[in-house]
């Protein structure tokens, strides 16, 4: 290359290579950078040769890992040099040193365009390569037509067209609008006729990107793809140089098959036949050979073919052939191949009905569970988990349990969870299920999450036949030495509830049971102590007639824990003690727990979530998700005897006597001089619920749950707070059959302060928003995510913009396919300052249910603000220049939410007001500057000064100045709103307020966080 001619460069490189250590190298580099800076500074004396040389040096230094933050201008300017060597340096260095975010790359667009439309092929190639590497949105807008022209021109050499295709791919990724969907499908189909394989491979990359976004538009290309496959795999009609280890262009084959997977089906019978013939050939013709490279290539093709076969729902015969092939793979010694075999089998399982065939390999898979390679073990576990059904559940779970004691620690948790899920899903009888879970806890207690034992308790509670068995089992386990704490919890709970059912058996008298449980008390942690206390109370209650000795013992324990450090335990001890002295009333208060409402298992949900998290947006995955969720729905319909509706959740069986008891009790406490109205009975029940149900109660609107729990507060008054929280939720009509599961007002206020998040969510749909703001323009993207497995119909979204905003919503599709997410961009332009809010009128139909909501869109005043910081002198100049109303307004605001100055500064920062510290000498004052953008005012400086009174935080004086009277007024009102209500905390407080009232014993009610966290997680999964 031209390098040989540059002595300076080669001397520099050899200097660097001769450096003994890093330090010397750094010194040499710094010296050279200094030299380059000096040379670049006297621009006049720089010949093109020198410039080229120094830019090469810069690149070399950059490649060594040093920061090169100057001289980019020189590199870019070399692009316009007339000679090849200089131009080449320019292009190469620019594409290495810069990226699309550099503003001044824009200056190069014209030069690049000239090179692209010029006649010189090498220049075209250089330009296309650079754009293909660092081209951004602006490049896309200005260059796409020219690049397209190059791609379809017949006069260009394949070399150029190859690069043009890849360049267009980059531009398309940066800005999908550059490729016009309608016009391009015909061209694409022509391009796919290309004979030159190089061009075809590049075009296929482009095609995959295009088709993944707009499958419908490219139907006409489908036969072409099949033709290409035929040409490659059957006819092998290609040049020698495009074969790799005898395989005709594996890359193109893989890409073509990937593209085919984006089409839902292949309908045309002849095409389908041809395609299957090709696939058959690939499946048959692949084997494991010695050469690693050949293996890699042929397996890449094979696995893509398998994916395609799965996608196309091929005939059973072909499927079994695939499975047979995979079965061969998992028996191979080579770990990579075995891994792939297992993984693909798992995928296959999710999509098609081949379980029976796969079951033949069960032994082999179980062997893989003992493989030295952990990733293979994991795959095997996944596969076993996937292939499990009622017929082989017993074997597989048994196998997993056995394996658990020897398994890797890294895997145990997953293993335990999966075993628990399988046991639950496919339990032939419930006693087996209880056995399995108890074994699980016994063997791997540390790895069993709370959800698992909660679930057991649920089952036992809901199935009366099971109760004695479970109690007996629990009793058995308690005899074992060195019991895991989880086992103590579950045994204590079950024995507390049902030990009376064992009364006649040997060594199961309440006393004995109490003794054996009490043995564990000193060694367990606080949450377990709490459960043990409940158990004692229950044992006491079940011991009829009362046994004074036992009573004494238990009371002693309660007494002891009355002054325990943990408040929760303290309260339990006090309350149980008081309750247990009531005699007969105790029976009612501490009655057996009611049946749990039937709900989806938290475990299954957990597993499902994990799957969604890792899901790619590929066609196969999408389908597989549907499949699994269907499976879950089916398995969840377990026969139950009389389940309770959700909103009675957690009510203790509370006969009328109880009311008397509680009122009596209330009177008692009042006599004692306390004003507390907390009813021990209800708190206790809420509390046990907290233990057991809280983490499970993910379904159902949290607000409803909260209000239901609130009803249990003595007096059973309906609390207006909870209702209020709900009423806030919808702006428009209340006649909706669908209730939102997020607090809409809160979401709106949160989104006013940030740019992305969930705007609305109900059981069927989730609407997320992502916004970008630039001066007075804004671009919001609405993400409409269908959460269900059936489509949402007649989706309609209408924007009702206020007068000061110009809004354009792109077309919203009529239906949203199942489990899919649709993006609707919304362009916003701000005309002038106003506090009015745009409203989105959104409606859809799910089955027969019609839902419609009016949602406020977070395109509010502060989104058009841009914080700036002014130096003091300039600030005061402006401040003085804007004097008196209407440009400068002052107001004393009272009833402000008290907050410290840093808090207020934070609030201002989130409102895009740039707080400038130390501008005002008084430390109690806050000064902020910001720029407001709108079409009428353009950029307008706004100055804000807040004077607070340190002795009275609820009032302050605010002064606002700007060059526009409306803006001043609106901004003042806007800030005032935030100062007075502080929406960021209000809804949270409203939501949080009922929670402590409902469950006073449980500081963090798990229900609320679960409800609120969930949408976030969902959105994250969907995005």
């Amino acid at each position, binding site marked *: 290359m031209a390098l040989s001619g540059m002595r300076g460069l080669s001397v520099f490189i050899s200097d660097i290579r001769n450096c*003994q*250590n890093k*330090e010397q190298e*750094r*010194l*040499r580099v*710094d*010296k*050279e*950078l*200094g*030299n380059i*800076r*000096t040379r*670049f*500074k*006297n621009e006049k004396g720089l010949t093109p040769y020198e410039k080229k040389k120094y830019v090469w040096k810069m690149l070399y230094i950059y490649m060594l890992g040093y*920061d090169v*933050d*100057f*001289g*980019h201008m020189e590199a870019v300017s070399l692009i316009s040099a007339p000679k090849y060597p200089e131009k080449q340096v320019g292009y190469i260095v620019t594409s290495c040193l810069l990226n699309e975010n*550099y503003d001044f790359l824009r200056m190069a667009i014209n030069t690049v365009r000239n090179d692209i439309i010029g006649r010189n092929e090498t220049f075209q190639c250089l330009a296309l390569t650079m754009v293909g590497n660092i081209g951004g949105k602006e490049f896309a807008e200005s260059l796409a037509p020219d690049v397209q022209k190059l791609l379809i021109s017949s006069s260009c050499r394949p070399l150029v067209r190859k690069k043009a295709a890849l360049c267009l791919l980059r531009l398309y990724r940066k800005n999908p609008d550059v490729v016009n969907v309608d016009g391009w499908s015909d061209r694409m189909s022509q391009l796919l006729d290309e004979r030159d394989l190089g061009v075809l491979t590049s075009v296929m990359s482009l095609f995959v990107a295009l088709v993944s976004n707009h499958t419908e538009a490219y139907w006409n290309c489908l036969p072409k793809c099949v033709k290409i496959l035929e040409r490659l795999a059957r006819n092998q009609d290609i040049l020698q140089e495009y074969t790799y280890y005898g395989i005709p262009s594996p890359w193109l084959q893989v890409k073509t098959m990937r593209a085919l997977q984006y089409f839902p089906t292949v309908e045309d019978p002849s095409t389908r036949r041809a395609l299957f013939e090709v696939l058959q050939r690939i499946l048959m013709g692949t084997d494991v050979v010695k050469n690693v490279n050949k293996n890699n290539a042929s397996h890449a093709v094979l696995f893509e073919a398998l994916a395609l076969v799965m996608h196309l729902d091929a005939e059973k015969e072909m499927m079994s052939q695939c499975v047979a092939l995979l079965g061969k793979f998992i028996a191979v010694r080579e770990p990579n191949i075995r891994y792939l075999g297992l993984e693909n089998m798992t995928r296959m399982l999710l999509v098609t009905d081949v379980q029976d065939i796969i079951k033949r390999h069960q032994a082999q898979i179980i062997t893989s569970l003992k493989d030295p390679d952990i990733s293979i073990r994991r795959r095997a576990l996944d596969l076993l988990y996937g292939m499990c059904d009622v017929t082989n559940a017993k074997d597989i779970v048994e196998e997993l349990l056995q394996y658990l004691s020897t398994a890797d620690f890294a895997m145990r948790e997953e293993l335990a969870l999966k075993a628990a899920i399988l046991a639950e899903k496919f339990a032939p009888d419930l006693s087996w299920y209880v056995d399995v879970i108890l074994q699980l806890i016994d063997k791997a207690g540390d790895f069993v999450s709370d959800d698992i034992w909660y679930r057991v308790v649920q089952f036992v509670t809901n199935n009366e036949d099971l109760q004695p068995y479970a109690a007996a089992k629990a009793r058995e386990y308690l005899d074992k030495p060195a019991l895991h704490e989880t086992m103590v919890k579950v045994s204590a709970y079950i024995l507390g509830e049902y030990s009376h059912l064992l009364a006649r058996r040997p060594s199961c008298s309440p006393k004995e049971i109490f003794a054996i449980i009490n043995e564990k008390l000193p060694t367990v942690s606080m949450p377990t102590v709490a459960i043990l206390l409940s158990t004692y109370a229950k044992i006491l209650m079940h011991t009829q007639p009362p046994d004074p000795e036992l009573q004494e013992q238990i009371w002693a324990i309660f007494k002891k824990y009355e002054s325990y450090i943990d408040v929760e335990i303290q309260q339990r001890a006090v309350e149980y003690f008081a309750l247990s002295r009531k005699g007969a009333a105790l029976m009612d208060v501490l009655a057996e727990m009611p049946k749990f409402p039937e709900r989806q298992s938290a475990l299954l949900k957990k597993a499902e979530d994990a799957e969604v998290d890792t899901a790619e947006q590929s066609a196969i995955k999408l389908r597989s998700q549907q499949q699994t969720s269907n499976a879950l729905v089916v398995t969840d319909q377990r026969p139950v005897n009389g389940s309770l509706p959700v909103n009675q959740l957690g009510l203790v069986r509370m006969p009328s006597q109880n009311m008397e008891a509680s009122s009596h009790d209330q009177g008692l406490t009042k006599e004692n001089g306390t004003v507390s109205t907390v009813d021990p009975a209800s708190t206790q029940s809420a509390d046990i619920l907290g233990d057991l149900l809280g983490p499970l109660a993910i379904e159902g609107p949290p607000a409803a749950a909260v209000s239901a729990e609130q009803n249990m507060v003595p007096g059973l008054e309906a609390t207006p707070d909870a209702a209020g929280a709900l009423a806030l939720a919808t702006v428009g009509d209340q006649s909706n059959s669908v209730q939102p599961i997020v607090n809409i007002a809160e979401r709106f206020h949160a989104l006013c302060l940030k740019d992305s998040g969930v705007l609305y969510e109900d059981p069927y749909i989730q609407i997320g928003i992502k916004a970008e703001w630039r001066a007075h323009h804004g671009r919001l993207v609405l993400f409409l995510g269908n959460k269900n497995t059936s489509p949402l119909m007649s989706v309609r979204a209408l924007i009702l913009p206020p007068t000061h905003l110009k809004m354009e919503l792109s077309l919203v599709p009529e239906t949203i396919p199942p489990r899919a997410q649709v993006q609707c961009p919304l362009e916003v332009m701000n005309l002038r300052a106003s506090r009015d809010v745009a409203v989105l009128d959104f409606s859809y139909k799910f089955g027969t249910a019609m839902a419609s909501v009016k949602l406020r869109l977070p395109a509010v005043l502060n989104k058009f603000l841009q914080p700036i910081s002014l130096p003091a002198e300039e600030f005061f100049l402006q401040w003085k220049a804007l004097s008196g109303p209407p440009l400068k307004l002052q107001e004393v605001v009272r009833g402000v939410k008290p907050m410290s100055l840093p808090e207020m500064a934070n609030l201002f920062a989130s409102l895009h007001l740039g707080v400038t510290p130390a501008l005002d000498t008084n430390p109690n004052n806050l000064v902020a500057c910001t720029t407001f953008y709108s079409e009428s005012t353009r950029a307008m400086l706004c100055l804000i000064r807040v004077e607070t009174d340190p002795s009275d935080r609820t009032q302050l004086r605010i002064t606002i100045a700007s060059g526009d009277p409306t803006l001043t007024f609106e901004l003042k009102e806007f800030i005032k709103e935030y100062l007075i209500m502080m929406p960021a905390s209000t809804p949270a407080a409203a939501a949080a307020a009922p929670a402590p009232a409902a469950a006073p014993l449980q500081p963090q009610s798990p229900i609320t966080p679960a409800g609120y966290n969930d949408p976030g997680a969902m959105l994250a999964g969907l995005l």
Partner: protein
Amino acid sequence: MPVAASAIYFLNLRGDVLINRLYRDDVGGNMVDAFRMHIMQTKELGTCPVRQIGGCSFLYMRISNVYIVIVVSSNANVACAFKFVCEAVALFKSYFGGAFDEDAIRNNFVLIYELLDEIMDFGYPQNLSPEILKLYITQEGVRSPFSSKPSEKPVPNATLQVTGAVGWRREGLVYKKNEVFLDIVESVNLLMSSKGSVLRCDVTGKILMKCFLSGMPDLKLGLNDKIGLEKESQLKSRPAKSGKTIELDDVTFHQCVNLTRFNSEKTVSFVPPDGEFELMKYRITEGVNLPFRVLPTIKELGRTRMEVNVKVKSVFGAKMFALGVVVKVPVPKQTAKASFQVTSGRAKYNASIDCLVWKIRKFPGQTEATMSAEVELISTMAEKKPWTRPPIQMEFQVPMFTASGLRVRFLKVWEKSGYNTVEWVRYITKAGSYEIRC
């Protein structure tokens, strides 16, 4: 005494092991790989001299182009370990004739092994005194027992030496000319604000001696330090002489100094080892005479230009002069070029250290010199961070000047035979970290 080392390694800058010695078997031989991987090849190097990796502590220090790494696995005495390394380096230097670097190590493998065996036993430091070790670890050829010529010198009795009362001096030394050289070497550390107020200032000094004296002489040194003078006037019951007295902080003496006499009479009396040694070290924080004043003005003119003006004044006696004065004025990293005007010396821009370096070979007292430079900066793509303005650094040496004002009042030599001695006294002040903020 606690263990100081389980193993010691000498590595070059690339991380290759030059030489190593395992003293205890509680660390594996490959532990040094961990050092190379986790310290040398990362940016950790130079941040902290003690690192813990995989249950072992690595104590390391760099001497010229060699890393000396001590590996310990127990709870070692770190200060002892570092002192050991310093002393060992001093020992090697005295054996190799002053230089200690990679080449010196490569040329003296056998000797180093011999010394390493001697100076530490099972992780416990032993005698590191060059004078003693040179008695029995010699670099001379081995005399064959069958050699006809009997040895001229009697074989020195090392055991007696080490266990004797004056372990640091050999008996029976004879010099034709009895001479004592005494150097007071001080280095000034200064941090000055841009407005000229002193933020931090101290002097660390040491008194180096070189003795070529016969027999077992007893020496007595008198300085113009405060305690000594007061004590003297007390003893002689006459008022202290008016004049400058110096308050010395943190004085440490060589082991030869008789501490009981120092405590009772406040005089430094000692039987010196033969040859070169460091008699005492001290520190002074009050009443420091600064040899130079620096007045910088640095103006940033827009984004691409800077003006630097530095005036340096020498404030020591007019008859004295400073040597090797170097003023380093930091400039931003994006400096492209600089043009200078200097009244004396020579200035240039050094890109590797991002400084304008102004060198003056000889700087007479009570004079001043100025440098004015115009610096051009190049515009960069990186976000413009305000320049941090690191301090100006200065290097110099001023012979016959002490920043503390310390003077030798007398140096008396007493020996049984009562020979005459010649005493030479020198003073020199160097720059430690002499920094002026700008």
